């Protein structure tokens, strides 16, 4: 908006569209003329694909990885599950009180 160059560029695009070029042809012509920075997103293939793949890979790794990690933790814990203390019985009440006191004094 308010760009001194955009009117001219839009005019060029309209000319190309009017000349009957397909969308991909207009796109190639436009990016060849002004360079890849004119494209709104990295869509040239090659290394540009990394821009799209990496977030997806991180997303999948984060979700699947966390799920797997939690499952592994749970499996490891299962043999000792019987040893889980019952609150109010096995926990040392003095220790618990001391911890509560510590964490609430401020």
């Amino acid at each position, binding site marked *: 908006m308010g760009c001194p*160059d955009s009117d001219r560029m839009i005019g060029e695009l309209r000319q190309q569209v009017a000349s009957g070029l397909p969308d991909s042809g207009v796109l190639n012509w436009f990016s060849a003329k002004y360079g890849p920075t*004119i*494209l709104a997103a990295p*869509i040239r293939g090659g290394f540009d694909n990394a821009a799209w793949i*990496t*977030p*997806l890979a991180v997303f999948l790794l*984060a*979700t699947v990885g966390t799920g797997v990690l939690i499952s592994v933790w749970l499996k490891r814990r299962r043999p000792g599950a019987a040893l889980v203390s019952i609150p109010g019985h096995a926990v040392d009440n003095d220790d618990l009180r001391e*911890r509560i006191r510590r964490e609430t004094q401020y």
Partner: protein
Amino acid sequence: MTASGRLGETARRAGIASFIALSCSAFALVWASFTNDYSVAYILQHTNRDLNTAYKFSALWSGQEGSLLLWAWAAQLLRLRAAHASQGRRPPVGLCLDHPCRVQVFFLLLLNFAAPPFAIQPGPLAQDGFGLNPLLQYPEMVIHPPMLYLGYVGFSVPFAFALGALMMRYPGEKWIHITRRWTMVTWLFLTCGIILGAHWAYSVLGWGGLLGVGPRGKRLADALAYRHGLPALGHDAGEARHDEGLERVADLLHLPSDYSGHPAYPFGTGLQRPRLCPVFYRRLVLRLHHHRLRGLPVHLLQQKDHLKSENRLESLVSRESSFLFNNLILLTACFTVLWGTLFPVLSEYVQGSKVTVGAPFYNRVNLPIGLFLLFLTGIGPLLAWRSTSLRSIRRNFVMPCIAMAVMFAVCVIAGVRPWSAGDDMQAEIFSLITFTLSAGVITAIFTEFLRGASVVRTQTGKNLFASTVLLVRRNTRRYGGYVVHFGIVVMFIGIAGGAFNQSREQEMGFGDSVQLGSYKLFCQSFTQDSNPNFDTEYALLDVFRNGKKLTQLAPERRFYIASQTPSTMVALHSTLIEDLYVIYEGKNPDTGKADHQGLHQSIGELDLDRRHHRRPWHLPCAGT
């Protein structure tokens, strides 16, 4: 006094001296702006004599050098406040504030060597400045950057305390109690800043409803991830450790993209903006980040015993797990924005040519992440702490599932049919999923309120409304959280509404009319105006709906004299359900008619802006 005590006192006094020096510097720059001192290069480049008083003041943060100065000043102010408020508390404040002090040294180095705000303009003294960037001559821009900066730097305090507690191996979550008020106030600043910035970007750039996809939004996501972990603390002390790690990672992710700014921000400090960003500065930012990244594994390894949770996750299907997943997804969204911000630099390094990573990238990549987040927002509150039984799942999920099925059917009947949408299939798929999930989440939230209120009603005998009020007052954190969830859902619905946008470009002469959705625009007249700062021409358009006149819109096109730059001022008719957005693109010299672009946006004013999807290119000034 011991040696360490004397050192601490020296640090405190140095902090005060630094704050006084930065305050004087900021005042001097504002003074130079008001007195039109064009011997200062920054003032010459960002102001002019006829600039409005408010914008002369905002010139302080209109360029990179001034932004850095404001940032350093705000950081020092908050740091001093934190030091004062936390004296005598544990963990030791000196240790906690060590990290922000290092960051401050970085900023002061930049201000002194890389981007000095008081550099003298060589050559003869200019009579007038080049003017403020027209995009910044907008009311929101007077207040948006300071709010945002206070939000940014404010979060360094909880982070610093987290780090201090981690380094000193302080037990429990006391650091969170100490910094809770900080977190809330900082959250408020960040929220206000982002809302103002989003509205500015929407009105000026045309795509700002999703400003949250930018680095600033990412900081909000960082903060959201951090804040989101807090409710779990009452149930699992181990989460405190998780949050320390989380905040550390979040800070690492936020640093380079925050400091790198966004290409849409002229006041930002840009890794992507070579003119404003000397190579030295870029190297400095990346080097600093590299050090922090390298230090993270070592630091976490050193503290791994302390980071171990005292409690364990007992089930994959539990509220603790949903918190963990939620925070990881928020961090993934942060990473996506960081990646998008740094990718142009990486591309230049690898391919030798820079690429643009703009709105289409963020819209496409963040949408699946956002939908997963929405899904977790819905199921999280329905899961029990520790472990959820199958019976409980069946009981809690029945109503949301019914709501989702009903909403899916309603959407299909109303015409949201991706399979027959052609080019718009992707947008309609996302809209359909969003509306369906939103119905489920809203039902889940209301069910939670209703269930709690029913229990209170049984106990107290009060009516349902009074019981709900009492319920919320008894547990503000939990039910406040649900209200926040509701807000998030409304935001998602607004974004999904972008699939129904209608856009039309048309030349209009006197008496011409154009139909856009249910609106009819009638061109009344064109007129011109002038003031010392800019010349303007605008159109007067009457807006009708169902034959009844609703309002008159006056979209403008301005020409700023000092900078010799044109700019448009959008005319907006905004309602809760939809917006009418009209841009006046100026008169066509061939026909003498005015060119208008109208955008009719349904459901909220958040803009997915299909215009950008349809145009795979961007024009250099269209979004910058």
